[in-house]
């Protein structure tokens, strides 16, 4: 359960977050929709305690990331817009490293790596070094790292970019399984089809403000537009407004 109440963040004169409020429930996949520059990255960084907010409150299972960032991070899987792979380490060594950083070790860790590898269908690259991996292979490794320590919360920044059809299906499968286990998943994405197919809840942010929250159907009903993409555009503002 992630609860965000009127969070604001200012860098110099730039208001990156001007008041973001939402709650993402356990056992649901929540989409985070917003045009580029809406403040998604800042929001995610604030959630893991890398940035300090100026105003408002954040509670992740009741814990404030500003007060106890390590406890929050132990319970979060964070997939950034960068994969963060090490070219000179094999996938297994990479996963071992992050597993150990999250307090895992021994046979439990080994078993969990095999589990995750199977879930994401990446057995073939487990013993290979990351140099020369394709985009799809890279994101799989990064995803495996995100899921490794069985976090209760997942913050995913465009997890399906660069994946082929088979891998996208595998990813969707994995996310559904996590939802069934009761995880709280927040997924920033630009693919509307994914939102309609996968997500239970949608948060729309624009220019650092929450514009709307609700299920895809609710958003369509509220705007009176049947198509989610058009509904999103109307919520964010005019098309010209986005371009500017």
């Amino acid at each position, binding site marked *: 359960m992630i609860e965000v109440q009127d969070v604001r963040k200012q*860098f110099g004169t730039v208001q990156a977050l001007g008041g973001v409020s939402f709650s993402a429930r356990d056992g649901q996949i929540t989409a985070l929709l917003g045009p580029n520059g809406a403040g998604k990255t800042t929001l995610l*960084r604030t959630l*893991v305690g*890398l*940035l*300090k907010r100026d105003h408002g409150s954040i509670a992740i299972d009741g814990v404030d990331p500003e007060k106890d*960032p*390590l*406890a929050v*991070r*132990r319970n*979060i899987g*964070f997939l*950034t817009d*960068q*994969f*963060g*792979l*090490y*070219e*000179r*380490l094999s996938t297994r*060594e990479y996963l071992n*490293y*992050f597993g*150990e*950083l*999250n*307090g895992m*070790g021994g046979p439990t860790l080994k078993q969990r790596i095999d589990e995750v590898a199977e879930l994401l269908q990446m057995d073939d690259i487990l013993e290979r070094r990351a140099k020369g991996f394709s985009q799809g292979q890279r994101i799989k490794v*990064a995803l495996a*790292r995100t899921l490794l320590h069985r976090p209760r919360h997942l913050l995913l920044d465009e997890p399906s970019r660069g994946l082929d059809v088979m891998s996208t299906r595998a990813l969707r499968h994995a996310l559904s399984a996590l939802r069934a286990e009761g995880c709280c998943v927040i997924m920033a994405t630009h693919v509307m089809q994914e939102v309609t197919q996968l997500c239970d809840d949608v948060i729309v942010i624009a220019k650092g403000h929450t514009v709307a929250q609700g299920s895809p159907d609710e958003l369509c009903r509220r705007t009176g537009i049947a198509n989610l993409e058009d509904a999103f555009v109307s919520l964010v503002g005019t098309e010209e407004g986005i371009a500017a």
Partner: protein
Amino acid sequence: MRPKFLIVFQKELRETLREKRTLALLSLFTLMYPLMLGYLLNQEIKRATKPERDGVEIAVIGASQAPTLISQFKQRSITVKDPGPLDEAGISALLQARTYPAVLRLSDKFGENYAAMRPARIELWYDSADENGKRRRDVEDVLEAYGANVASARLLAHGVSPATLAPIQVQRFDTGTNASRSAVLIGSILGVLFLPVFICGMSTAVDSTAGERERRSMEVLMAQPIRAWELVVGKWLTSATLAIVGVTFELGLAHAILSWLPLEEIGMSWSLNWADLVMVCVATIPLCLFAAGLQVALAMNAKSFKEAQSVLSFVMLVPLIPGVVVSMMELKTATWMYMVPMLSNQTLLREMAKGIDVGALPFVLTFACSALCALLAVGFASWRMKSERYVLSV
């Protein structure tokens, strides 16, 4: 559970050891430098000991006109060869071939002028670019002595005491012992002997901070349940370990080579034993820690590998400055020198090479001052990594 910084340390070390560039640098500086040093000193020794075995050989054109002079050369074990009449170009060619340190040419009228007691001319040809200055001076000494002898004999024949020609008498005393003369030479060698401290760990320090930032994996790492100082310490220790290993091997090899060479032959001394060397190596560990800490603290602020590298190669020159200043101003060894990192290590090794018993204080100061600087550097790096401005620019 293992401490987090050890996990980071282990991963960084594994990654580093897989990188060929780092290993090449390490082996280059641990092996090449002592070997090069040994080779150069060995050449020096060979040159210095050569004259005693072979004697000097000079060419004298028109030697038959001055048999007494020639016999005096022979007494001083200077062999004389007569190459026959030569012009200037021929003499230059002879000198350039480096077979003779000097060529003497007696003018055709030498014998005639000598007999008539007019100054008889001898031309001394030499190449000042050649390094045979000492042997040339031997030749000049013989010429001078010969001239003085002849003058004395002529004065005596006129009933004048030769002592009138020598109003003063110069006697030379050289107080420079082998050890103190070697201080200058050893001092310049030592300046560079500790350089691997700053080189061996550099590429790791850069790669694990600026490199990680450039590859955009730093943000992921910082979002893990690990404190900023644990990350910094892990990376710092990796870089320091390489520096420690590198400089210890290099000092060991340099010590083996310097003790094996007959350094007395060129007026140098290396009076260290292996126990002394171990002490020096231990006192150098904090310098490695400081160098690594400084490199991590600086490199983490650079946005790319290249930027960090150019900043660091510039900063690497800074620790050499105190050593250069001290030797330029010819300062006497003082206690404060043991408080300046790098300079302290150079001073310590120099004093010990001279065979001076320095006592415990210099070791303690050398150790403690570098250790303090290392802690400051790591503290700064940790503080910097925690700051929001750093997170934003990652």
